[in-house]
């Protein structure tokens, strides 16, 4: 079934792209208009944020210098840098029960099955089907989505499981896991499909003691996505000390 699906998607991708474009233009204009109405508050907020970020910038510069000197001392091998392919979203599943996107880039652009897909804000999902110039992304909110993640700070590992709802659930957390509300969740890189450290969202505890993740990416509004290259060799990522 998969080749037929990819073929059909490929055939219809240009026309689906044209049908999607006006909607995406309207969405972009609507966002701009909404932005104009609360320009004043936004400027005030940005000024505050800018002041805070300047402090962070100083801190980052200091830490970078410190980090560099420590790395030189340790002779550590760093994670390879990732490269991206940016693609436009041409279609979605149009269905409340399956959450996927079709993007206008494929094998010809270096996209492979299994690669991680990001929006500007964070992880969106992974590539599940790739044709020559079109690929399907399974969103992390989909029922079938399972992504190995890690909670920053506690370094607690879990599997992010889609529920078809807006908030995916953290599964396989040990019962005594100490998870702070609002902690950042990033990809753990286990299994070697995703590079580690890609931002996913923040943890929230819901009734019943279950932990859900408020994802950074706004999957409904996403127009362009970035497909991340697979790590070169996941086994070499923990760092090797050269003799």
């Amino acid at each position, binding site marked *: 079934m998969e080749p037929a699906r990819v073929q059909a*998607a490929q055939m219809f991708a240009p026309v689906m792209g044209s049908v999607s474009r006006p909607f995406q233009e*309207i969405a972009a204009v609507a966002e701009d208009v909404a932005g104009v109405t609360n320009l004043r508050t936004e400027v005030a907020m940005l000024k505050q944020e800018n002041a805070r970020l300047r402090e962070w910038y100083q801190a980052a510069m200091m830490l970078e210098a410190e980090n560099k000197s420590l790395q030189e001392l340790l002779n550590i091998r760093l994670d390879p840098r990732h490269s991206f392919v940016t693609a436009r979203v041409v279609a979605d599943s*149009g*269905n409340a029960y*399956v959450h996927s996107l079709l993007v206008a880039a494929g094998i010809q652009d270096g996209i492979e099955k299994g690669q991680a897909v990001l929006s500007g804000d964070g992880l969106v999902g992974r590539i599940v089907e790739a044709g020559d110039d079109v690929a399907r992304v399974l969103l992390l909110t989909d029922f079938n989505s399972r992504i190995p993640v890690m909670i920053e700070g506690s370094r607690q590992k879990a599997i992010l499981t889609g529920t078809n709802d807006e908030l995916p659930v953290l599964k396989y957390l040990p019962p005594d896991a100490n998870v702070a509300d609002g902690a950042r969740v990033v990809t753990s890189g286990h299994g070697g499909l995703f590079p580690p450290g890609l931002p996913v969202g923040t943890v929230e505890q819901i009734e019943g003691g279950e932990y859900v993740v408020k994802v950074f990416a706004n999957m409904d509004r996403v127009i362009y996505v970035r497909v991340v290259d697979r790590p070169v060799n996941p086994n070499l990522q923990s760092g090797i000390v050269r003799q």
Partner: protein
Amino acid sequence: MRLCIPHFLTLAFVLLNVAAMSLPFSQMMKPDFVLVAVFYWAIFRPTLMPPVVTFGLGILVDVLAGVPAGFHALTYVTVHWIIRGQRRFLMGQPYLTVWLGYVFVCAAVSLLQWGVMAVLHLEIPAVLPMVLKTFTGIFVFPPLVLVLLLVHRLLPETKKAAFP
């Protein structure tokens, strides 16, 4: 040539079904445009969309949307089959009754698809998207029917105007 127009329109509905609208909650709330066409033609011009075409249309939606094959196809064929059986009754009814009929069909389809997904995954899927999708489906019916009605009028040998 004029006979092709409804088919192009249905194809446009298929594309609308899968087009990325990039609007808030669009994935959750996007209605099933094709279902309206299936419902309308099953009542007012069943020869235009026989079960085979309806099935093929469903498969196309399945393939493009990336859902399990047959998910929409079987839904559409079932709706077509049931509505075709009731068409003599529905044809003579005022607009509101037809709309009410669609409300019933739309809710039943949502529930059926929700049930199929529950069985497929052996887990209870979220209810809210199903409810939202049903409501948007109900409210998108009048404008879509208006378009279908205009196309219907263009067709040769229209036996009866759809709505008085």
